[in-house]
Every structure is written in C-alpha cells, then in structure tokens.
C-alpha cells in the first residue's frame, strides 16, 4: 500500500517539516516499505485485548501544593533564539501569508 506524494506532503505539513522534492520521493518510497512491513499486525485478532499504553498502571499522583523555587527566567531565556523584554519573541502568527 504505497503512500502517494500528496499523502507525504500532507503528513509533512502536519508534522511541520519542510521537505524538498527529492525528500518527498524518498520518504514516499521508504515509508511505504515500512508500512508494508507493519501491515502484518492487521492479521492479529486483538478484539479481546486491552491496549498497553504503558507497562505501569498509570495513575495521576498528587503532591502537596507547596511553593518552591523555579528556574530563573533569565536562565531559561538564555537558550532562546530571540527574546524581548523578558519574553520569548516569535515571528507573527497572522499576516505575511507564505
């Protein structure tokens, strides 16, 4: 079940990955091979099986709501590509359509 180039472009857009034309071709072929391989799971009857999301019993542990020091703002901002006035600076979300 080969992936089409349009499907690869759609997935790449969802994953926020810009691909070259050559990459689109390559991933269409490689991802199709991988999907062919995993196809064998479809023949397993799992109608009576619960899913395993984690091997541990998942709980939401609670902790006392106590104040404690957090990482200083300046230390966190130091890793950012662009900061302004103590905040992360990002390109405009709206406008400047691609």
């Amino acid at each position, binding site marked *: 079940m080969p*992936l089409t180039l349009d*499907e*690869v472009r759609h*997935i*790449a*857009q*969802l*994953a*926020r*990955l*810009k*691909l070259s034309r050559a*990459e689109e071709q*390559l*991933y269409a072929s*490689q*991802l199709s*091979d*991988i*999907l062919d*391989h*995993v*196809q*064998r*799971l*479809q023949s*397993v009857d*799992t109608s009576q*099986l*619960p*899913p*395993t*999301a*984690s*091997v*541990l019993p998942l709980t*939401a*542990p609670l*902790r006392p709501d106590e104040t404690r020091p957090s*990482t200083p703002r300046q*230390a*966190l901002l*130091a*890793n*950012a*590509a*662009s900061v302004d006035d103590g905040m*992360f600076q*990002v*390109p*405009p*979300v*709206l*406008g*400047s*359509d*691609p």
Partner: protein
Amino acid sequence: MPTLVHLGLNEAASLLRSGEITSTELTRACLDRIEALDDQIHAFLALTPDLAQQQAEAADARFAEWRANGGDPPSAVCGIPTAVKDVLCVEGIQATAGSKILEGYRPTYTATSVARLIDQGMVVLGKTNTDEFAMGSSTENSAFGPTHNPWDTTRVPGGSSGGSAAAVAAGFSPLALGSDTGGSIRQPAAFCGVTGIKPSYGRVSRYGLIAYGSSLDSVGALAHSAADLAPVFSVMAGHDPLDSTSLREPVPEPAHDVSDLAGLAIGVPDEYFIEGLQASIADAVRAAVDVMRNLGATVTAISLPHTDLALPVYYLVAPSEASANLARFDGIRFGPRAEAPNLLESYLETRGGLFGPEVKRRIMLGTYALSAGYYDAYYGQAQRVRTLIKHDFDQAFEQVDAIACPITPTTAFTIGEHGDDPLSMYLEDVFTLPANLAGVPGLAFPVGFDAEGLPIGMQLLGAPLAEPVLFRAAQAYQSVTAWHKEHPDL
C-alpha cells in the same frame, strides 16, 4: 602507579580508596587517552575538562577526609571518570542529542540519574555521540558523524549509545551512561564487547533524559563488568518526584561474593534462534548458558510466541511517541531558528532544515500512525498487540527467573552497510525491542568473539525489578570467564 587505562570501575575504586591513585590522576589519564586516540573513534561530541578537573579534586578531597576521619567509605562511583551520552542533560553543558536542532542548547538542570551519581562523587569527562535523538542502531544517524568501533574502525559501534559503548571499550572511561528505548544500551554493548544494564521501565528516573519514546525510554549504564555496574545502578535507581513514572519500590543493595547459581532457573527462548542469526552468536550464547548451568542454574527451553510481532509494534509505538515528543523542537525556546516571515514558515524551515533524515522519517511515520482515520488501525492495533508481547514475558517469568538470548543477529556491521535502506537497519533490532515493549530489565555482556575477532554479546532478561537476579547471574558468569577483560589494541 598501576596502568590506569582499562581499569574496571571496582578496581579503580579500590585504588582510590587505598590512596594508590587519585581521581585527578585517573581523570587526566582518561583525558590524555581521549585526546590521543579519539580522532580514530569519535566517541565524544564534547569534553568537559574543567568540570572534570574540579569534580576530580572534590572526589580526592572526599577520600582524604575519609582517610583522616573514618566513617562510611565514599561510593564506588566517587572519583570515577564517566562518559555521558549526549541525550542526558548536565546543567550548563551543551546537550545536542546528536542533532543540529539543539546546537548551542545548554540545559538549566541536570538529569536526576546523572545528578545522583555526581552527588556521590562521579566525574563527568564529556558527552558522547549518539544517533540523533537516540534513533538508530549504529550512530551513523548522528548529525556530527559516526562513531567507529574500537575493535575495527571500519565498523559501527552499534547505537544509539554507540559513543558510550566505544568510550568504555577504547579505555577512555571505566564508566559510561546511556539510554535504551529499543536496545540502545544492549546492542552497542554487544558490538563493543562491554557490559550494559538496561533497567526496568520506571526503575531509573527519566527526568533530564531528552525524550524519544516515553513509554519505552530507560536510562542505564555501560562498564567492563556486571560487578562494576551493580553499584552504579544502585545509585541511579529509585523514585524521583520529578518523574511520575519512576517507581517507589526500594532499591536493593548490590550483591557481593556471587559464587554459584544454585536455584536459578534460566529459560532459553526458541524464537531468538532463527534463520539469519549468525552461527557463531548462537554457539557463543549456548556455550555461555552451559557455563551458567555448570554454576548450578537449571536451563529450560521456553517460548515467547509473539516475538516476531515486536518489530512492527515498536516501529509504530516509538515513532508515534517520538512525533509527539519532538513537537517541542520548534526554534522558539531553545536551539537555532530559521528566520521566516511568519510562525508557520519558521516551524517548517527550522524543523525541515535541522532534523536529520531518520528523525524526519520517524516523525512522519508517527504522525501518520496517529492521524485521523489511521489511529485505530495503526497505533491502536500496535498497543493491543503490545499486550500480547507483555503477556509472553509475564508467562515466561512464572516458569523461569531469567531469559538468556542473543542481542543481535550479527556482530558489528560495516559503516554504510545499510545505506539508504532504513527497514534493513530496523531488522537489526529484532532481539532487543521486546524487552522495551514489556518494560523488563536486560543485562548485556560479552560471551565470545567471531572468526573476524569481533565481540559477541548476550542478554539476560528478567521480570520487572529483577535487576538483582540479572546482576547475580552475570557476575557469577564473569567470575569464571574472561571475555569481559579483553580489550582492543588502539
């Protein structure tokens, strides 16, 4: 002064305690050897000589204090130079995860597993090479070039903890830290002829480990022997309030004086001795099992009937989790950013330009498996089949205490051998993936060499939290064999 290169951790620890060597000398010897020889190996992405010097001096002060005043001796890890896989955060030291998307990133905190060892006096030598975001089986997926196997530099060291395994094998450090999501400690341990522990899921905190597959990731270590790893594991393990999946069960003390294996039941699964398994690996693993039988263990054939489904399950579950985890790398809070007129273009350019091919492949595979219309058929079905794989182990551990099996179908392959065929690379992981899907611990150790002089490893798998059983069996095996004492000539 004894030769410092290739000292095991416990040997080094006893020389440090007796005062025959200092951590400063040992650390300097490691750094000198790395500087002289790592051009051939490329185990390290970065060295931290200033931090190492400072930590070594602090360790020496601890020993001096203990000698003067008595009390409990410093930990076995005190003063031990250690190579840290570059997916584990150390405060202020660049962490790249083998990726250009994190170039320049300096974490503001230290991973709990690493911090616990540093508290006990461990010395950080530097950060080791890894497949990008731990996605790979050879370190060829590192954005900074591959690591070379110290036994044959035309071959891969395995991966993704290939830099860490190569560092121990090359005599660069007696201890290295790694992570194992689908075999990333055990497989490079096998390829490089060293010993590695992949703990049970939840046994060691994942806080500060750059996440790949969160239901599969575990933090562990590599060294020259199981006895060397036992005290390291005891320090790293245990509950951490910063990782809600870390287990609260008490951590056992490492065992001493392991002389026989009376009462230990070992199972050998038929499904791991399949067509495609190199004959010399099958022979070496069976011979190692015979050694353990002679030490008093009972050995029975067992079945893990769904083993062949682990590969398709893993290559849906892990990429799905990765596609979610790696969404955070967007050029806003850390790492370089491609400038673009708007936010969407900036995301597309930054991620498309800075993630490497394997990471993009897995993100897309996971995005597809989780997308509307495909979720149940791919991700949902994989999670249900994962239940079968876990059942296999649950049932096996009702019969036996440990499972002995091969780690890899072949010994170390050559750099470039899998070229542009990712599926053929994935098939290398067929024997290591089931343990991660079931969350069970694995201990990898050398059991021989093939005709070309390349190391052969085997793994012992245990029930969740049965690490002490694995350490006992491997320590007993290594007390009567010498494979783990062999090292390559560099």
